[in-house]
């Protein structure tokens, strides 16, 4: 089922259609018609196409039913029988004297599958893989070639590289941000040489000012793991400063969780801490005097 465009598949479809039309027309001529309405030819073409398609579909089904992938003659025969066609009449019909021979349609620009860039030889299937499985992809998609370039060990070069790399990234990033958003400038006549990303007020300014950034968090974890520090709290730091997912219930739940875990770790005694703020909220009494 293709739609409306001139893809290679469309071209096929049109050529097949044209050939079938020629066939239908020659059969009509053979049957003695001198002319036919286009709609009639179309209808007959459609019928013929359906019929042939059904033969193909059915033959494929029979073939696969017997666990094969290539249809044999008997598959076709069974199909035709099943479709109520008298197979015996077929040889005679094929050899009838008044039959018209249609020349094969000219082969126009044989559709070649556009050759993907191939690199190297595709690997053949190993013996245990049946041939109908897809071929291996091009080797460059899975083969790696380790390089053995001498690592840069000169400290000065390394530091230099790290520094300029970071500076370039920061510069590019901030310039991009400045280009894509609002800016401020120190010089009225020039906004591009020293573009400053515009100051934008926060709704909750203390959050960004106090919480460590994601990068710092990462760093802290790295240095922590390497230096073995007693700072388990920091793992709980929220990385994102979204305020939308902190409903009151969630808030309380997390608070309680924090506290219980805390009491458990700190005091060897696993007693529940008696703190009035951890006690459950009481249900209202039937009628409290105002």
């Amino acid at each position, binding site marked *: 089922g293709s739609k409306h465009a001139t893809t290679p598949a469309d071209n096929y479809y049109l050529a097949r259609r044209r050939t079938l039309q020629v066939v239908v027309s020659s059969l009509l001529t053979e049957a003695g018609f001198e002319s036919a309405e286009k709609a009639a030819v179309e209808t007959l073409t459609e019928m013929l196409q359906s019929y042939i398609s059904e033969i193909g579909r059915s033959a494929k089904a029979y073939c696969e039913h017997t666990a094969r992938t290539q249809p044999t003659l008997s598959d076709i025969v069974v199909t035709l029988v099943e479709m109520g066609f008298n197979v015996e009449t077929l040889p005679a019909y094929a050899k009838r004297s008044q039959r018209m021979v249609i020349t094969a349609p000219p082969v126009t620009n044989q559709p070649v599958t556009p050759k993907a860039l191939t690199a190297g030889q595709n690997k053949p299937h190993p013996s245990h893989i049946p041939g109908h499985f897809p071929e291996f992809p091009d080797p460059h998609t899975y083969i790696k070639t380790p390089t053995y370039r001498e690592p840069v060990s000169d*400290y*000065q070069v390394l*530091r*230099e590289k*790290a*520094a300029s790399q970071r*500076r370039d990234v920061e*510069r590019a*990033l*901030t310039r991009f941000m400045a280009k894509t958003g609002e800016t*401020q400038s*120190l*010089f*009225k*006549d020039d906004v591009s040489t*020293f*573009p*400053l990303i*515009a*100051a*934008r*007020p*926060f709704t*909750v*300014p*203390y*959050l*960004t*000012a*106090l*919480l*460590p950034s994601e990068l*710092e968090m990462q*760093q*802290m974890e790295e*240095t922590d793991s390497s*230096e073995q520090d007693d700072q388990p709290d*920091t793992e*709980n*730091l929220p990385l994102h400063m979204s*305020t939308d997912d*902190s*409903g*009151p219930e969630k808030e309380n739940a997390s*608070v309680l969780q*924090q*506290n219980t875990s*805390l*009491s458990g770790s*700190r*005091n060897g005694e696993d007693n529940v801490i008696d*703190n*009035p*703020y*951890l*006690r459950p*909220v*009481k*249900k*209202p009494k039937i009628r409290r005097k105002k």
Partner: protein
Amino acid sequence: RMNRKKGDKGFESPRPYKFTTHQVVCINNINFQRKSVVGYVELTIFPTVANLNRIKLNSKQCRIYRVRVNDLEAAFIYNDPTLEVCHHESKQRNLNYFSNAYAAAVSAVDPDAGNGELCIKVPSELWKHVDELKVLKVHINFSLDQPKGGLHFVVPNMEGSMAERGAHVFSCGYQNSTRFWFPCVDSYSELCTWKLEYTVDAAMVAVSNGDLVETVYTHDMRKKTFHYMLTIPTAASNISLAIGPFEILVDPYMHEVTHFCLPQLLPLLKHTTSYLHEVFEFYEEILTCRYPYSCFKTVFIDEAYVEVAAYASMSIFSTNLLHSAMIIDETPLTRRCLAQALAQQFFGCFISRMSWSDEWVLKGISGYIYGLWMKKTFGVNEYRHWIKQELDQIVAYELKTGGVLLHPIFGGGKEKDNPASHLHFSIKHPHTLSWEYYTMFQCKAHLVMRLIENRISMEFMLQVFNKLLSLASTASSQKFQSHMWSQMLVSTSGFLKSISNVSGKDIQPLIKQWVDQSGVVKFYGSFAFNRKRNVLELEIKQDYTSPGTQKYVGPLKVTVQELDGSFNHTLQIEENSLKHDIPCHSKSRRNKKKKIPLMNGEEVDMDLSAMDADSPLLWIRIDPDMSVLRKVEFEQSDFMWQYQLRYERDVVAQEEAILALEKFPTPASRLALTDILEQEQCFYRVRMMACFCLAKIANSMVSTWTGPPAMKSLFTRMFCCKTCPNIVKTNNFMNFQSYFLQKTMPVAMALLRDVHNLCPKEVLMFILDLIKYNDNRKNKFSDNYYRAELIDALANSVTPAVSVNNEVRTLDNLNPDVRLILEEITRFLNMEKLLPSYRHTITVSCLKAIRVLQKNGHVPSDPSLFKSYAEYGHFIDVRIAALEAVVDYTK
């Protein structure tokens, strides 16, 4: 039974009634959207005289709906004279007139004079009841809309419920300002017990004074009511409240201590408060007294009025004190705030004051014990440095503005009796003071406590505090006997009596000098060595005629470091004697090479070639223990200051020597400073100070200076790679002393100037390289303060632009060095938008640097950038920096 002295009243309530059992405050509706509060109070009053027919209470900005006395409707008048101080007075538009009118208005509602804004008529039906001195219950319904003070609402403008937005409200204010949010007797001397109830959104927490008895849902289950009970008699002025969607942390070391912070900050809260138990232990130990309340709460809120506010059993802190383990610089500052708050729990909250003129005792004691904590926590060097700093501050203020009087005694209230006529405000009430004056007042109060300690010893001092606390503690457990409760109020006379009982010493002269009169002492000292008599002739003059000074008469310690050792001498400063002969112990020139003994017993080798061959004197110090509130200007030769810097072990002496050496730009001074800078045993603040002095000296010596720019080779040796000295090592701030030095040296170096009065190119390139190669990836700590100081260094390197006939500043004529600086500032400021630094320290430094560039004519002077950063919604430090820049345009 009360101790009385002339002019110092014992405690007599100014009101013809007293509180007995307790006061109820119930706030049953808080609307964050409209910023309003609805509630009632119920005061239980006990008449002390017959024919009591009017009750005066304090109330500001509250709308009073209804007043009932013993369930009978009562008439009331509300009048707040401070709302219109000058009554359309058009003729006398001067500060003096305003000041007097304002003091009169504050007096008219002063609870300590029995006054108040709200006057309630006792219904005539109850007069007989009153005459029998029976209890009255006054019930007042009130509401509060958009309060301008006393209660502060923080409501972020965003989507979601109030709890999701992190909206919160808290009480705040200066001195007694509880009347701003509920009617009360807003005095520190009127104590009663309290029942406090707050009905809030179910997602919120209400934190208040005393014990949380229970939390109960309302019938619709959407709200809950927090019931607090405060059984320790407490002044209304020490009542506080904070409501918000707080995260709750029970202190892991002390379960009765609970910490609260705004959503998402819990990890910071955990780290920040993890130290608090040590402060508790310290105070309890030195005071040999348990923390007086049964619980303690800390609440960290946004838009705090002050960084630390102490109230009965709770303290309200600025949320900006919270920090993670990666932050170095904020840690000691925050710990100081915690320790201050806790000291005030004992003296200020639990023990309150009898009257305004006794305030100095509370501030003095809490400041003094906080100082002891500082000494224990940060060491003697830090403590002495701090004391010197505080002393310098109070001296500078008094010399500039006039005296600060700790214990004012007011006569008939006439103008001529005003003990502070040099000031443009009255010191009769806390509310008429200038903020700066009050800060200096607190500073002086704790310094005077230290002077008392010097006089009677720390042991006796702590015994006095313990005595005050135990008396108060006994009194607080007495129920319904409010006359006993006055033991919980401290007065100047009671405190002095206690000192004399405990120590047996007469400190009256000291009190007269520093408490009953204002001013500081200004000494000028110089000396000559009389070789024949082997005597040091010391001349000490005083200036006691300038404003803010006073004459000092009494003992004065002088320490003389001689070749044979260090010797203390106590001089008697008297009216007319300026010259003091001090016999020397050593002969002028020593024969044999011998080590020189110092004050602390240490014996050191010194190169004595610099000293005067005829004199055995190495250096002289006037009042080395800071036993007088004074400023000393002392003259001694440059080599003596150099010896003092190198060999005197007291950090204050070292700092004084550094300050003095600024005037002696010689190679010897340079060497002394460089040696100190390199000495790792030397206190880091002294080394930091030496950096700046070295820069000044280098500039004065610019024409003769040899070698690389000052400090550069030292910095390279300390912080740069061995193999490539132009590249700084990757950051490792484990050693805090090195860290502070690493931060400071570039800032000081940038102040260097060459013969053209420009920052040497070499120095600028050096700083730019520090920025370029800065690498914090392997560091355990954040480098935000370090990077901020590198920007400060860039700003320090800027010198005025050479302007040709006032041309307009454009990019084309931009100085190439400035271009490099601007490049860095632009990148830093932009990176702050993507990866903001802690407290936006880098933005702050960038803004300051931009203002410097503008001021020096490199960049067009345009305040619009600062105006945008000054807007609401930026972090407070950024706004302050931006506003300071904007204000700078007026200078």
